[in-house]
């Protein structure tokens, strides 16, 4: 019993550390990719190739003045940044990095992921409300409607996968993909998942809640110092976690592509695939312009929803009659 507790705590610490490492160097990667795509170099001065830049950014944010808006709704104002980080960190509990490396093999892991990750909308809504300012409020409202629309697409595209596998456990989902990755069996679900995930993360081209050109900074306009850092931490942690889940669901988790290079351990493959999806999100952000809000909602309800529902229907036929 005691051994299990200690082992679990050690696992949690390691998973948390790896996630935070990914988050820190996610910001670095973001800046390097942004620079590269715009023919610039990106961070360069802190350490070799600017590798200590995330550390410097963190220190800077620590020493900034922590402003609390006088007429804000205080409890909400303090809770919102916490809510931004916690759900993303909770999700790592169910992510299987290798066949036997995971914090817990929850049999409802996918439901847990959906339930927990949709909590982060509260951070944005409450953060937008608590600042007692019009731009954050507008950002928060936009975020709420965007989340509700894309949450459905995200959930339904996961349902397509769960129908084939017949289990909500992420470990079972990956084991199912031993011979063929899910992305080849469910390409439409994969595309829908990626679009919905990017929209859920408030990333460009769907970053309407924090559209700088019209809403100043969006929902975190009234936050400063570590509270602001918490929102950013949450955003990047959500990105990493979404990439990890996408890897589990569609890219065969820890399995090497087409069974080549079997000597590389599974968790390395997992991290590589997660990073590739993460990189894809950065690539998308620095390529496409922001969509208009009605286009965003229209795409969710008029395009993605019917497509993913049709996909579920076809998958259902295959599952029922195909065997």
């Amino acid at each position, binding site marked *: 019993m005691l051994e299990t507790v200690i082992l679990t705590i050690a696992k949690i610490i390691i998973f948390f550390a790896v996630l935070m490492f990914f988050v820190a160097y996610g910001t670095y990667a973001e800046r390097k990719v942004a620079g590269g795509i715009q023919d610039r170099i990106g961070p*360069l001065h802190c350490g070799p190739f600017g590798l200590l830049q995330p550390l410097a950014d963190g220190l800077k944010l620590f020493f900034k003045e922590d402003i609390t808006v006088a007429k804000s709704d205080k409890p909400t104002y303090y809770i919102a940044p916490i809510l931004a980080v916690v759900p993303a960190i909770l999700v790592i509990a169910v992510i299987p990095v290798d066949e036997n490396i995971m914090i817990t093999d929850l049999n409802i892991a996918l439901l847990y992921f959906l339930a927990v990750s949709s909590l982060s909308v509260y951070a944005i809504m409450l953060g937008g409300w608590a600042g007692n300012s019009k731009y954050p409020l507008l950002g928060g409202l936009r975020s709420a409607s965007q989340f509700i629309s894309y949450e459905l697409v995200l959930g339904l595209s996961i349902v397509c996968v769960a129908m084939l596998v017949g289990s909500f456990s992420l470990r079972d989902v990956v084991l199912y993909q031993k011979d063929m990755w899910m992305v080849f069996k469910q390409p439409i679900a994969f595309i829908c998942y990626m679009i919905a995930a990017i929209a859920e993360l408030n990333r460009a081209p769907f970053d309407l809640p924090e559209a700088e050109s019209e809403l100043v900074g969006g929902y975190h306009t009234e936050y400063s110092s570590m509270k602001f850092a918490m929102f950013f931490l949450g955003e990047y942690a959500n990105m990493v976690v979404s990439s990890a889940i996408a890897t589990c669901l569609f890219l065969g988790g820890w399995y090497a592509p087409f069974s080549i290079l079997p000597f590389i351990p599974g968790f390395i493959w997992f991290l590589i695939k997660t990073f590739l999806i993460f990189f894809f999100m950065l*690539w998308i952000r620095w*390529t*496409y312009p922001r969509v208009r809000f009605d286009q965003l909602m229209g795409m969710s309800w008029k395009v993605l929803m019917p497509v993913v529902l049709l996909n579920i229907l076809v998958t259902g036929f295959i599952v029922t009659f195909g065997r």
Partner: protein
Amino acid sequence: MIGPLIKGLSITIRHLFGPKVTIKYPYEKRKVYPRWRGKHVLKLGEDGRERCCYCGLCEAVCPANAIRIYGKEDPIFEKSDVGKIAEIYEIDYRRCIFCGYCQEACPRDAIVLTTEYELAVDSRSKLLRDKEDLTEKR
């Protein structure tokens, strides 16, 4: 609809691995062409005497009113070959727009714009450069 999206992605990925235009400024300097208009210098003649003869054309032509010039006689031709030199020659770098008209107007090629462009100083008063500062050092 999908075609243009993929085309956009391919363009950005090419730029990501393509050549960079950044100049790492403090470590490497921008390549400066000879006609660059930077800091002014008051030239000396081949005999070491000043070329400027206080005609005042540069002050008259300066569109930003950055130049202030006041002359005096040099009867023993010690510093000038025409008997007149500038006693005060000030260029206010807070006003100067580096148009180069002073260089164009100067009949004796006395004032010339050099390629030196790092003109930042730590106080505003230092931006008012006097004759001693501007005269060519030999």
